[in-house]
């Protein structure tokens, strides 16, 4: 499923204009512990987190994640946005909680047969 469709359905706000939304989403992962995300997130996953510092971009690049969603209206730090633009990683903002965001994303992916 294309990231763009998910962004529209969940009304996520793309914060990195240069990072395109045409990429494929393979699933999702929720976590604020970076070692856990590194160990368990899958390639192409959307990562839902409340972390906003610059290292989230490194983790996303490293794991080939399709996007980072920052929840609860938490704006990423300026250096995070800079790095995300440099590395071409979409960061999407939502005012909703991680629970709500993950729940809705799960429904969408489940309906598309991507998530059991």
């Amino acid at each position: 499923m294309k990231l763009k469709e998910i962004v529209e359905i969940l009304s996520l706000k793309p914060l990195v204009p240069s990072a395109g939304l045409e990429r494929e989403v393979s699933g999702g992962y929720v976590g604020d512990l970076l070692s856990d995300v590194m160990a368990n997130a899958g390639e192409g996953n959307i990562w839902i987190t409340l972390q906003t510092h610059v290292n989230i971009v490194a983790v996303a690049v490293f794991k080939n994640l399709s996007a980072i969603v920052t929840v609860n209206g938490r704006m990423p730090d300026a250096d995070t946005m800079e790095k995300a633009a440099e590395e071409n990683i979409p960061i999407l903002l939502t005012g909703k909680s991680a629970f709500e965001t993950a729940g809705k994303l799960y429904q969408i992916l489940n309906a598309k047969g991507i998530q059991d």
Partner: protein
Amino acid sequence: MKAKIDRTYEGSFHIVGGDFSRAGEASTELKTILLRMGMDEEIVRRVAIATFEAEMNIMIYATAGILRYTITPEEIRVVAEDMGPGIEDIELAMQEGYSTAPDWVREMGWGAGMGLPNMKKNSDVFRIESVVGEGTTVEMTIRLGDCGEESR
């Protein structure tokens, strides 16, 4: 797919402690090198995660460190050597969930006590040596054999 490694490749990365803006650069570069060599993705995943954790430990705890890698037809070996405070009780440090990271590092989502266990889990051979006040050396070996089992 099995990569054809016909000789030994070596390289190294210098890591500066506290420079969080560059976190993951060394491990991402090593990952790219391995993928370009045609290494099995599962092998690359294990090496990359182990290396990223080692890189982060240097950034969090040490003044500076060096990551050295050696790729042979049989194995990939990564040695992370730092000039850091050293580890007082290695057995305790190897326990999942145990961490001595300061609060500000934990708030960033690091320092959850998963680093060393993750390194061990992703290595076939894991060795750690530490001298308090001098530094820590971690050696991780991932075998390139067909079996691909994870020894603990």
